[in-house]
């Protein structure tokens, strides 16, 4: 039945013809977008929300930094410092995600008519 939803498999697929339902549109936009208010999970739920905002700001900083680099006018030393700061931020973010058991996809919010936050 619904287990077979692959219309065009990727060229390097190990097992063509199978779909992971949790990666389908049916499973993508779901519980991970909600804060879990169960007592044992509320800390993670709150961390997810806070880290989503932090990740949004981090990505905005990254994009702004790339725009500045592409526009030219920054010295090699300035680019090095900028890149180093961004790298440290990304590393710290990875540590926090690991600490709270979160994936990249968890750090997003469905804003309804406005689409996804990131």
């Amino acid at each position, binding site marked *: 039945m*619904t287990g077979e939803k692959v*219309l065009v498999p*990727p060229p390097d697929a190990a097992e063509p013809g199978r779909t992971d339902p949790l990666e*389908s*549109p049916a499973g993508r936009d*779901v519980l991970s977008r909600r804060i879990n208010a169960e007592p044992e999970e509320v800390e993670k739920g709150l961390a997810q929300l806070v880290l989503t905002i932090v990740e949004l700001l981090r990505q905005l900083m990254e994009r702004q930094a790339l725009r500045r680099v592409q526009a030219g006018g920054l010295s090699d030393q300035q680019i090095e410092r900028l890149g180093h700061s961004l*790298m440290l931020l990304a590393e710290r973010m990875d540590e926090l995600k690991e600490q709270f058991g979160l994936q990249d996809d968890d750090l*997003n919010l469905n804003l*309804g008519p406005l689409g996804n936050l990131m």
Partner: protein
Amino acid sequence: MIYLYGIAPRLPDLPPVCGIGGGALEAVDTEGLSAVCSRHAQLNLQLDEKSAWAHERVVEALMQLGPVLPARFGTTFDSVDAVRLALEREAQSLECGLARVCGCVELALRVRSLPPEESSPAADGQAYVQDLLRARRRREAIITQAVEPLKEFAVSSKESATASGEAGVSVSYLVRTHDVERFCGEVRRIQQENRQLALSCTGPWAPYSFTSEAAVS
């Protein structure tokens, strides 16, 4: 607790399938709409393969009957009255949403660059910036070569978010049922002409990514 699967134009009959946890389907009707639900004394929802397919099975059965606005997995209401109230409150946007997706399905496209990105961490700030710029260029190339040409075969499209630095793109397309084969043919053509990309396409799905203008949760 009422678990919602989707909203359809008012249904004379329900499809002969069970819902989450084997729950029986019931319809909450208003003048022109039916919300298809199951009633549960207690429901401990877990996003796992079995539950995701149980939800999808109901939605697909509804698709066989006509247009449907699928609810996101895990959409619940406290009571039937709350469902009916939501239906009545949002009737206009729901009817517009149903008209928009009528005769269409969602196809999910994933494109990534081959070979996969090297994952070794950047040695310094300069290298990190160069990695970001390279990923951005690859992503822009993917959009130009694969994502944009397929829009011609779709009614609408929505790009999903990807992590920064990741050179893959996920896009959902709303495609008329009779254009699905043409769309897939175009995916294959793009794949053949762009060996440096890996394209995959799944579906047909209910239009999960195209319900947001209508409030179904």
